[in-house]
């Protein structure tokens, strides 16, 4: 559209611009614009193709081989053997269950607490910006730092968590060995995930709440609706697409959990707390089994893809009906 109007615009002389050969110029201009577009694209897209697209294509290929790192040595083609190996690998299944558990703990908690905080912060409020900063602090802090910090907080004999639970409040009868056992370690990892993530969903929910028209709230208030009822009837329906977006992103994020597990338990003790990515990393970069590691990555990518599609469908349906 813009292109077809281009030539006529150019052939009408602008401020003092002389156009000696209008027709030729129009055609030449069109070609030059296309060339310019490619010139603008070339450096970035070439880098992107080499560093991202090519590895994407390679990821699946590597998973079909018993990959050899020795230069010149041939890698044996295995077909889908690496995938069959995963199906018969108890550690893979445990890692999958652990990842699922992490998702089940962290996603609903981050949504509920992030939404609650956003609702409390919505509207006139003293020190609002300060509160927002406090809740957002864990989000901007690097995973490495907060992982080491939580490892320190969950130490058995001198950790702050056990001190509060045992010495101060007597909730537990002894110091819990949080990181020494599978489910307690996963709970500690989940607590870190929730703590670090609340601020992110809060900021998104807050922005969405502020775009809900005020007069809708006022109208509901005039009709005698209390705060809870107004939230259910006015805010929640407006938030629906945002909740969908946040859920999809958090599910993807929870399946990508890596740094915290790597630094806090490193999958131990005895592979009890492996998640998919720590197990992949161990296979690839400790055992140098790149073929099997790639297969694990690929399985994870597929799971994330399927889960995202299912969620998008689930969230879309009620809207289509309504």
């Amino acid at each position: 559209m813009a292109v077809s109007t281009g030539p006529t615009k150019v052939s009408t002389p602008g401020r003092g611009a002389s156009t000696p050969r209008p027709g030729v110029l129009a055609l030449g201009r069109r070609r030059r614009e296309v060339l310019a577009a490619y010139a603008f694209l070339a450096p970035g897209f070439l880098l992107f193709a080499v560093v991202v697209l090519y590895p994407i294509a390679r990821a699946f290929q590597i998973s079909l081989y018993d990959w050899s790192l020795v230069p010149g040595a041939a890698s044996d083609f295995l077909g889908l053997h690496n995938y069959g190996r995963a199906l018969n690998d108890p550690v893979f299944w445990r890692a999958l269950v652990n990842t699922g558990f992490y998702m089940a703990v962290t996603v609903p908690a981050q949504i509920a607490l992030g939404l609650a905080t956003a609702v409390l912060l919505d509207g006139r409020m003293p020190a609002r910006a300060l509160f927002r900063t406090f809740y957002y602090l864990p989000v901007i802090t690097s995973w490495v730092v907060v992982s080491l910090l939580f490892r320190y907080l969950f130490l058995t004999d001198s950790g702050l968590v056990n001190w509060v639970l045992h010495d101060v409040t007597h909730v537990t009868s002894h110091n819990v060995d949080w990181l020494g056992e599978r489910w307690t370690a996963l709970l500690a990892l989940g607590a870190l995930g929730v703590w670090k993530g609340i601020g992110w969903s809060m900021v998104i929910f807050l922005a969405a709440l502020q775009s809900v028209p005020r007069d809708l709230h006022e109208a509901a208030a005039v009709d005698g609706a209390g705060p809870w009822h107004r939230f259910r009837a006015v805010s929640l329906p407006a938030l629906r697409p945002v909740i969908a977006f946040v859920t999809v992103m958090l599910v993807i994020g929870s399946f990508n959990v890596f740094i915290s597990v790597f630094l806090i338990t490193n999958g131990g003790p005895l592979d009890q707390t492996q998640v998919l990515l720590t197990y992949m990393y161990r296979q690839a970069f400790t055992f140098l089994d790149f073929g099997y590691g790639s297969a694990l990555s690929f399985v994870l990518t597929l799971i994330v893809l399927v889960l995202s599609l299912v969620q998008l469908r689930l969230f879309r349906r009620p809207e289509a009906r309504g």
Partner: protein
Amino acid sequence: MVVGGIHRTRALLFSRTALLTAGAVLMTVPFAYMLSTSLKPDRLVLEVPPRFLPEHPTTANYTGAWTSNDFGHYFLNSVVVAALTTVVAVSLSAMMAFAFARFRFPGRRLLFGLLLIGLMVPAIMLLIPQFLLAKKLMLLDSLAGLVVFYTGGNLALNTFLLRSFFQDIPFELEEAMIVDGAGPWSRFRRLILPLSRPALATVGIFTFLASWDEFAWALTIINDPGKRTLPIAIALFQGQHATSWGLVFAASVIAVVPVIAIFVAFQRQFVSGITSGALKG
């Protein structure tokens, strides 16, 4: 009725503030504890009951981390890598975004679709093929290897965000420049870039922080201790000195302070970036 209403509003505000304060305490106590541990001498970092205000505060951990443990050097590595990545990635993605937003050319949809694929595949899935590629390109164990792959990894998201911003700039402004005979490059430099400062700042901040905090790739390709960035230096440091928590947290504070400073200075760009989907959970 009216009086009751005011009482109710006050009670509501009070309970809101109380709940938010309780939450804010839970959010910030770990940081306060980290700060206090970083000021404690080694023999007191595991004391029970824990003290939030150290009895004999000392800055020994900070000087120890910065000098004898080379954290000054790692800090510099991180600054160099993050700054180079930011400049190159933002420049390249702004150019791509300009092409996608303002030109029609064969293959436009295909190239943009490929970019979106890059956006959907999580970075860590590509660790193995990228490692093999870096090995072939002789980029292992070098800061250049970090910059090249961080830049490539940030291009898709940055281009996507900048493109939608550029599209909102009225085309009439550009047409006026075209009439005056301005070529694409001068339109880009003199019109698009100056009008997009807020978007460029948002994208730049997120790119900088992503490279500043990146862990998995640096851990995988860097072996030489002289080429460590702060995240891997801190993580490996903790592995070597299992109980030197004071030093670990002094180093952590050194790494986190610039991030918090950037956040406080650019809060508005942060919020607009997050709400447009720039920061993934």
